[in-house]
């Protein structure tokens, strides 16, 4: 645990202002207000102060001071995270990397880009497009989210099954350690000697170091991409069709599923021409050379029909392809229109349990009296149930959180995990006790201590303190028994 800061707000600010533009050492509540939360706005906290350095040397000096005084440091990119990973610590510093926004170099022949961490995800592909290249991972927030945040969360997107996550698409990071050391992890090569620290850093949610530079791999832009849209009258059939495609040896660039609620909401929002009567919708994108796409699209269309699709449609132009994706990509805001608030979950499951999990979720939905819409990265088993609620109704968010917790427990029960791409942050910290036992969690704490002996980097996030876990598990156990009894009586 962090002891009380030994330096006051004023003292820290004075120290930082000695080497950082005083306008960017923020201490007044009004200017700090936008930093009180990230994309998970239900969790808020005001920090001690906010600092926006612009060089790695400045970050280094901030870290040395914070380490000396044992002041918590929360790194922040664009603040689009969905697990409150960038929520401030009330006794700590928010270190914003917003000024690190330059693309330092693109090497078209080597197919790499050297970036400052505050570069937006989409800006990489936009800049690389002139060379016929792009950056693979494309999270839904790609217009705003930054590459530094992508490293912290190991972000994915809709093309993961074929092109991988952030961890598969970066070569090196330069980072400042908790103790203020500047190190490079990885190299221009595809591997380095020793333990794979780059993998460990990726997805570590700002708990192991502050990334000040990232080198990413770029991919050649596929010649062609086409989308097949298939509607089904049951989720089970759509799930089987996903398996069918993959068994056939086709690895789609993207493979997304939406349930009936999500189809209607997204179609109302985007007028994408979705089959509104369908209970499940698949969007299957095939990319590659012209010949390959032609061959695979024909196979996919035939397979979907064979496996009971009630409608099959293939994009015939880039405009049509963009429209079909628009519905899916705007599914979150679309659902936002049919409910005052929504809570997005991020569990991952082995695909064969899809129908079972969706059915159980329907039952929970009735039990909690809350609607749920589902969008699903079907290719890689990542579920995004959206629980619809109204934060102005007293007790409704608490009920929503409880519902969400039960969904995550269910994911773990069938062999999945509590978070596929949004991270643990504050939001899912209790469910960590469901996925991991105390020995495993202790090992995580020990890993953290190897990087950050004083425990100043993003404390209270990612890995729960063991003393809270026992309590949570026994509560969950009671709840589970209670459900079982209810079900038996029902």
């Amino acid at each position, binding site marked *: 645990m962090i002891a009380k800061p030994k330096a006051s707000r004023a003292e820290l600010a004075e120290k930082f202002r000695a080497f950082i533009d005083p306008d960017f050492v923020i201490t007044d509540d009004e200017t700090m207000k936008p930093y009180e939360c990230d994309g998970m706005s239900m969790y808020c906290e005001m920090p001690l102060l906010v600092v926006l350095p612009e060089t790695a040397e400045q970050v280094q000096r901030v870290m040395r001071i914070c380490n000396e005084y044992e002041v918590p440091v929360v790194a922040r990119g664009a603040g689009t995270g969905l697990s409150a990973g960038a929520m401030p610590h009330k006794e700590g510093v928010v270190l914003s990397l917003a000024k690190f926004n330059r693309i330092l170099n693109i090497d078209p022949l080597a197919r790499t880009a050297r970036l400052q961490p505050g570069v937006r995800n989409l800006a990489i592909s936009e800049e690389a497009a002139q060379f016929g290249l792009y950056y693979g991972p494309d999270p839904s927030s790609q217009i705003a989210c930054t590459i530094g945040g992508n490293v912290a969360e190991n972000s994915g997107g809709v093309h993961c099954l074929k092109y991988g996550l952030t961890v598969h698409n970066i070569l090196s990071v330069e980072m400042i350690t908790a103790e203020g050391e500047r190190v490079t992890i990885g190299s221009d090569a595809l591997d380095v000697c020793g*333990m*794979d620290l780059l993998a460990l850093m990726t997805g570590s949610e700002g708990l192991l170091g502050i990334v000040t530079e990232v080198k990413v791999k770029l991919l050649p832009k596929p010649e062609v991409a086409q989308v097949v849209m298939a509607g089904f009258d049951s989720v089970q059939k759509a799930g089987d069709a996903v398996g069918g495609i993959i068994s056939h040896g086709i690895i789609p660039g993207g493979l997304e599923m939406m349930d009936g609620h999500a189809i209607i909401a997204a179609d109302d929002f985007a007028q994408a021409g979705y089959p509104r009567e369908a209970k499940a919708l698949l969007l299957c994108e095939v990319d590659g050379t012209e010949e390959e796409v032609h061959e695979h699209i024909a196979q996919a269309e035939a397979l979907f029909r064979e496996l009971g699709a009630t409608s099959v449609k293939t994009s015939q132009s880039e405009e049509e392809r963009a429209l079909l994706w628009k519905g899916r990509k705007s599914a979150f805001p679309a659902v936002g229109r049919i409910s005052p608030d929504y809570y997005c979950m991020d569990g991952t499951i082995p695909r064969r349990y899809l129908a079972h999990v969706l059915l159980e979720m329907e039952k929970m939905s009735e039990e909690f009296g809350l609607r749920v819409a589902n969008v699903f990265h079907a290719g890689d088993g*990542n579920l995004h149930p959206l629980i619809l609620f109204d934060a102005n109704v007293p007790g409704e968010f608490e009920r929503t959180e409880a519902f969400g917790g039960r969904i995550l427990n269910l994911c773990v029960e069938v062999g999945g995990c509590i*978070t596929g791409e949004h991270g*643990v942050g504050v939001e899912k910290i209790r469910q960590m006790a469901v996925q991991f036992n105390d020995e495993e969690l202790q090992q995580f704490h020990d890993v953290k*201590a190897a990087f950050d002996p004083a425990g100043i980097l993003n404390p209270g996030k990612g890995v729960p303190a063991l003393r809270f876990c026992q309590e949570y598990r026994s509560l969950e156990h009671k709840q589970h028994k209670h459900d079982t009894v209810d079900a038996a009586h029902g």
Partner: protein
Amino acid sequence: MGDISQTLKEQILQARRTGQKLNIEGGGTKAFMGRTADNNAGTLKLGEHTGIVEYHPVELVLTARAGTTLAEIEATLAEEGQCLHFEPPRFGEGSTLGGTLACNLSGPARPWSGSVRDQVLGIRLLNGKGEHLRFGGQVMKNVAGYDTSRLQAGAMGTLGAITEISLKVMPRPAMSLTLVQDMAMDDVIHYMNSRAKEPKPITGAAWVDGKVYLRLAGAKSAVEATAEKWTGEVMEQGDQFWQQLQHMQHDFFAGDEPLWRFSVGSTADNPELDGPWLIDWAGSQRWYRGDADMAKLETLAQRAGGQVSLFRGGDRTDEVMHHQPRALKEIQSRLKKSFDPDGIFNPGRLYSWL
């Protein structure tokens, strides 16, 4: 033999009590790698901890105990038309999945298909306290907790004994074809990278003995159309060439002369060093044969944006892996302590100080 994790655990606990060290051994085919093993240490035999635990072709996921041979896994996958697309090298029939991950070994397709580390979804691991831990899972996406599964890649067992691995598998390409042509080493780096920059189904790019080899693999129509457009003769025994490269059975690798591995930037100029070279991974992995001074090679490797290691032969009592900068050495020493507080596993195998 099946699941012997309980026996392994007891052996670790006993070693901890008695202060004994343990060398981890799977199929015993990688004894030549790393620094010379500690003679006074006992052996923790993972080679008997075998068996495919789960395999769901539709999920593209396979889970196997660490001592399962690559041969068994690949035969099982082949029955379903799938494969380990990172093309792990086998240095003998006994090569295991666990050893492959610990040494982070991948074959010619690596730049396009990813490495063994890239395919790992989760592991079970016995740490130095004898705790049998489970990290990651059997799903493609999982960001709960630190990625201690992939951390093991290249750690050479210094953090613990990997007992089980879940990994992503892929369909076998419908067709593959190799194009070969004469080319000087000075021209080949630019050539291979230019080809890799095109959106074509390329899965191999290597150069040896004055010839460049490109492999195309994937949908039949795409492979054939690309072969039409690109220069080079279609090689009759193409698959055989890549297999020899994958398993290091190519003539280049024969003999006792020290074998150095340069892992460098794909477009870097080749280090100025006379002697035989083999270039793989479109320039990212370069092999050199000959007696040389490690410090000098490290300078050359760094200039090429990467690192060097003495892969086989030479003096293995000294360091064989590229040195670690002070701060990373400190972090890895602390990580070692966090997993293996008494320093039981593979003492001095990766680095003298680990």
